């Protein structure tokens, strides 16, 4: 298997993050570094990537697996190029999130939790993202798309398709 490693730029960031925490407490850097890793390695955390993070932080691999599987933002399976996360909790539901989800399912021709055949989009429903006053909303990468209508969703999907860039929380 090919050895995986961080780019120089990411490695510099990783080392900067580790320095935020006291001597011997480098495990604290785990969550932020997993974000860096996910952004660098195709939007998901493979066991090999998690082992790499474990070795950098000098912790046991199981400590990384335990953490990565606890938090909902880490993908433990490959995802499409653009991960579309639609909020569906009470306040968003009140303002029509069900319609947004249905519209996206029809438009992308996939169900929630699936990825389009071309690997371009993965559709996911998520719980409250703190956009209740601008509901309904979805998140793609770090960006919030709020006060959604089906027209806005159409435009967004076209934009994402033509930009053809991987969504990432780090941008």
């Amino acid at each position, binding site marked *: 298997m090919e050895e995986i490693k961080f780019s120089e730029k990411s490695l510099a960031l990783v080392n900067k993050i580790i320095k935020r925490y006291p001597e011997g407490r480098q495990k604290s850097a785990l969550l932020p570094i997993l974000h860096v890793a996910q952004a660098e390695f195709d939007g998901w955390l493979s*066991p090999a990537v998690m082992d790499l993070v474990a070795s950098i932080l000098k912790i*046991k*691999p*199981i*400590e990384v*697996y*335990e953490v990565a*599987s*606890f*938090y*909902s933002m880490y993908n433990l399976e490959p995802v499409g190029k653009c991960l579309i996360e639609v909020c569906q909790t009470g306040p968003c539901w009140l303002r029509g999130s069900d319609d947004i989800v249905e519209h996206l399912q029809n438009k992308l021709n996939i169900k929630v939790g699936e990825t389009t055949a071309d690997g371009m989009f993965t559709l996911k429903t998520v719980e409250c993202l703190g956009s209740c006053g601008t509901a309904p909303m979805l998140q793609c990468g770090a960006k919030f798309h709020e006060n959604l209508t089906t027209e806005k969703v159409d435009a967004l999907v076209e934009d994402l398709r033509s930009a053809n860039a991987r969504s990432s929380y780090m941008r």
Partner: protein
Amino acid sequence: MAKVTIDGVEVEVADGTTILNAARQIGGDLVPPAMCYYSTLKDSGGKCRVCLVKVTAGSAKDPRPMPKLVASCRTPVMDGMVVQNITSPEVLEARKGVVEFLLLNHPLDCPVCDQAGECDLQNLAYEHGAAKTRYEEDRRTFEKIDIGDKIKLHMTRCILCYRCTYVADQLTPERVHGVLGRGDHSEISTYIAKAVDNDYSGNMIDVCPVGALTDKTFRFKSRVWFTNPMDAHRDCPKCSGKVVLWMKGEEVLRVSARKDQYGEVKEYICNECRYDHKNVKDWTVEGPRHIDRHSVIAQGHYERADLITLKKEIERQIEFEKGKPLPEPNPSLTA
């Protein structure tokens, strides 16, 4: 030292003792059950909530009651503290609730489970559970897997006590398994099919309160109540060498560490003792193991109950079911 009163019985214990351990010093029925706490595993406890008790007076200095039920296994006593366990209907009601929660997704495959007869959940359900489930949804299931060549993991049966992870952290050189996922999807796993392979991994089996981790070398060999437990020892360079041999005739079916009346191992054993010496000639047999816990394996010698006492105990339970406060337990039954 601190004086604490539990269900009307006073006991003096060292400062810092937990309510649960104070109750164990008194002994008998008023000892709260424990599914996750394990006295020889640091940081264990607080999770399963079956040991919840009511503190009606916090201390002599501040006699206010505590606002919520507390986990007796992790709450230290204070001088002058007053605690109710089985004398509090509120505690018994909460405990019944917790037992129901623990059984919700538990498979109830006791007839084919190797732990049956020595299962803490089975005993707990017998004492505190309801006869019928109110849960009509599908139960959560997992595939059963091998973790290492000697241990079978039935995740479906796991109650997430975390004891096995503490064993791995505290007794073995490196923990390779842990709790993955979140909420009711949490599972014990190595994540990447990795073997748990070290000299003390077998202790994970002994600390497991249910049949989630079982000894593959004993699987389906015998119901545990058909075996003869014998205390035995050998000179072992790695561990105390003090074990229980679970025998059928001259055959050693299983070797385990010795558990006390609360199901706890005080002296852990190594895998060599556990798996590699299934010949009775390897051991100095001390004599029959006395099983203190009242469970199926204490049988062979079912303690003979006085029928009049038993009738009174049943009446006492019926009164309680009617919503009346629980009268004093019959001392001859708890002795």
